[in-house]
């Protein structure tokens, strides 16, 4: 089923938002106004947006340490995300979480966890809740090639499989953990092959092609909505930057490899295709770009001018219902 021009344009818009958001984050980090560490998803925008746009707002989503882009892919407002990066009270997590936990629950996020692989069983649980209530809701769970070596991957996928839970497990295989090649530490070439251990479909898709990702994930979503259970989707992709900002170890990748992947940068790839197919005129594309740029600039402004939380706020949100206050202990 061909995608409408509106959907394709929206894909382009969201991918651009992510790219520009990340570039701003990089600049702000260089400037020193972002605390902690940041992990950029530049290069991975197609798999993020292709997957996120295959689900509905009501559907759940989980991300990880490299997930600035995922709430954006699912339609979140940019300003509270950017403010969170800067640790401001107006941040989507009120300054409690920061870069590794950017999570906008209003668009269906159930969190972004910086412990590798930890979201995988949680996603099964969210899907279980939907199943138990008979709701038409799926859960889309992102994780990396590195995460596919965690025990939680195995336990989560097995649980989702036996209970036919409506989850889409999307492995963002960018070829590397922090500085370790998947070839060195993942015993299979295609992580999708691991689906065989759970009796579920394992699909491989070109992660630089937003339409291809959208198609494969859409199929997985339909399967999930039909009650047939989870799918493991492996999107082959690449991160163009260091594992984390400022981590200058690059001895584990070749420049040729990077250049090869840069030639398949998902953003020009999509733009060229949309223009060539007459979906967007050059002018229309330009308008989308300008709008995205303005949106991100506004988010940066909002973030910069937002106040920090007060120290006493550190004590909020430990519990939803605090127990009676006591002297000590």
């Amino acid at each position: 089923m061909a995608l409408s021009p509106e959907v394709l344009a929206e894909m382009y818009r969201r991918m651009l938002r992510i790219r520009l958001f990340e570039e701003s984050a990089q600049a702000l980090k260089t400037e020193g106004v972002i605390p902690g560490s940041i992990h950029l998803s530049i290069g991975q925008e197609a798999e993020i947006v292709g997957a996120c746009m295959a689900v509905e707002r009501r559907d759940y989503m989980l991300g990880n340490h490299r997930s600035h882009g995922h709430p954006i892919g699912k339609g979140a407002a940019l300003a509270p995300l950017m403010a969170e990066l800067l640790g401001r009270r107006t941040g989507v997590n009120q300054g409690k979480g920061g870069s590794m936990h950017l999570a906008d629950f209003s668009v269906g996020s159930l969190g972004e966890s910086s412990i590798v692989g930890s979201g995988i069983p949680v996603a099964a649980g969210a899907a279980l809740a939907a199943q138990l209530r008979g709701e038409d809701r799926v859960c889309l769970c992102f994780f990396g090639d590195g995460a596919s070596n965690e025990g939680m991957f195995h336990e989560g996928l097995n649980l989702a499989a036996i209970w036919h839970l409506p989850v889409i497990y999307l492995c963002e295989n960018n070829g590397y953990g922090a500085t370790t090649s998947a070839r060195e530490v993942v015993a299979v070439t295609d992580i999708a092959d691991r689906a065989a251990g759970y009796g579920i479909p394992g699909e491989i898709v070109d992660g630089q092609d937003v339409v291809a990702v959208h198609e494969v994930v859409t199929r997985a979503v339909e399967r999930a909505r039909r009650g047939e259970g989870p799918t493991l989707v492996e999107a082959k992709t690449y991160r163009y930057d260091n594992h984390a900002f400022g981590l200058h170890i690059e001895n584990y990748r070749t420049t040729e490899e990077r250049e090869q992947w840069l030639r398949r940068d998902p953003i020009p790839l999509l733009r060229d295709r949309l223009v060539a197919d007459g979906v967007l005129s050059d002018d229309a594309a330009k308008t989308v770009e300008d709008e995205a740029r303005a949106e991100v600039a506004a988010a940066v402004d909002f973030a910069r001018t937002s106040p920090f939380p007060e120290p006493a706020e550190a004590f909020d949100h430990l519990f939803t219902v605090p127990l009676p206050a006591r002297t000590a202990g």
Partner: protein
Amino acid sequence: MAKTTYLMAIGEAMREEMERDPSVFILGEDVANNLYGSTSNFVEDFGKERVRNTPISEGAIAGAATGAAMAGMRPIADFNIAPFMYVAMDQIVSMTAKSTYIYGGQTKVPVVMRAVMLYGNGNAAQHSDRPYPTFMTVPGLKIIAPSSAYDVKGMLKSAIRDDDPVLCFEDGNCWFTAEDLPDEEYLVPLGVADVKREGTDVTVVGIAGAVPQALAAAELLAEEGVSVEVVDPRTLAPMDTDTILASVEKTGRLVVADPAHEVCSAASQIAAVVAEHGFWHLQAPIVRVTTPQIHIPFAPPLEAPLFPSSERIAAAVRSVLE
């Protein structure tokens, strides 16, 4: 009024809450088969959807319970024996305990995680842990360790209704203690200690299965003319230290009996709080009666002397009266 054992009380609490609230469900290994006797007829009455056998995947149990809770359900995750929680440690610490905070209150995590502590029965070092202190080091978890049938029923019901994660450590040595429970529904609030016996000479704080031992010690000592006040914190985190401090203010002496290993035990925590906030009331050292910092051996003659007994508690009380 009917005599109800601690074990039966656990089942009654879950049953009543499952009848009351359709978002409550149970998941865990062999729960549908009623392994320990707390889910008799649950499958018949609630169906396998709500009484779910899981694979032997403790991390997935914790994670799935957490995810379901974040998505609006109220799961009761049955971990079987307490040390199996170590297998799920990261999920419990990084996800269950931290999500509400990290996301700035965008989500709540109303999950109950239950496990029994089996010790004193030749189950050896991997099956005999009393690991509540391990989890007390982690903020964001409410932790309960009831010592009576009345408390376990009322507290477990409160835990299931609570909007935060609650770990419930049940003491296998209390399983078959029975008492008359009210016919009408009742709740025991979390975070409130209970003075199990009033006294004036020495405060004995007991944790979980040490509470009945402390009460037995108090009986013994009463015959010697010593009046012991027994306090059960019941909720270990966040703990009602006010009640303990008030008792020490009255008695001036403190013994803490805790079946956990000594180091960084609940007993150590209570002693530290009193040495800091109740110091000026103390007339004697704070003595802890705990399990020595060794693993639990298999052979009964090795294992039996290790845990706090009424004799050991009584001896400690006598020592602070010297």
